[in-house]
């Protein structure tokens, strides 16, 4: 059975090292399960919330959605990741129960060009941002009336400092 754990010196660098099953921790042939030379993503908070929505009728009619997440203060600005899931069968042309990676995008992505390769052609904007060290906000807009659709915002707030 290969050696899998080192706490202390490994090749001149002090730390903690754990190899994958079947791999020797002294070997450089494979990546390690835990390698303290490098940082890791660590989760601080995560969840899914239903976005609030309403129809705005001005010079243009749009559906506006938003969400506000409050999370415990780490004392610094953390990394965040967000996305959204479209729950309706017919939220305009947004595919039901689908999420996009790296994230949904829409008409405003580049020079106002509508991306015909993206099924959700009614999506005009999606974004999220940290208002401060305890508040994450998300916003999404759709062309045309659409305050009654079900759109969930998913988020991960990492412990890692931005």
């Amino acid at each position, binding site marked *: 059975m290969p050696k899998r754990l080192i706490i202390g010196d490994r090749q001149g660098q002090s730390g*903690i090292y754990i190899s994958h099953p079947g791999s020797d921790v002294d070997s450089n042939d494979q990546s390690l399960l835990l390698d303290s030379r490098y940082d890791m*993503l660590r989760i601080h908070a995560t969840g899914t919330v239903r976005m609030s929505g309403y129809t705005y009728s001005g010079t243009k009619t749009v559906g506006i959605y938003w969400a506000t997440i409050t999370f415990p203060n780490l004392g610094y600005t953390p990394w965040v990741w967000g996305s959204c*899931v479209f729950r309706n069968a017919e939220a305009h042309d947004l595919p039901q129960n689908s999420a*996009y*990676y*790296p994230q949904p995008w829409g008409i405003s992505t580049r020079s106002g060009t509508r991306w015909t390769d993206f099924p959700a052609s009614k999506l005009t904007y999606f974004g999220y941002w940290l208002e401060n060290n305890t508040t994450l906000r998300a916003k999404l807009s759709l062309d045309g009336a659409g305050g009654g659709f079900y759109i969930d915002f998913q988020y991960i707030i990492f*412990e*890692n400092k931005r």
Partner: protein
Amino acid sequence: MSRRVFLSVDKLRVSKPGFDAATTAVENLIFHEGMLPVAPFESGSATVAAGGSVSISLTRGYVDPPFIVLKSSLNLTPGPGHYYARFTTGGATLVLLNKWTASMVISYFVFRQFAV
């Protein structure tokens, strides 16, 4: 040299270089006993032709779409005009779409979900 590893009855902490593992703040730790790591759940890759798509059936169950990271063999960033993925719950299907002008291998890494 600062202590990089601190082990006690109820603590196991590993710090970044230059920080004392026993006393430093959490943002300077690489590993600690209370952390929730972002653990890879499953991964794979597929060759996707220019303008084409490949459908992948993920093997684990997901209540909500999980955190997914994509990588291209052409070293392009994921997004519109390059490549992206669509995840659908239920069948846990991941569709890899290549919108670039050349074939590429798209690798995907799906991470475990946590309820915090």
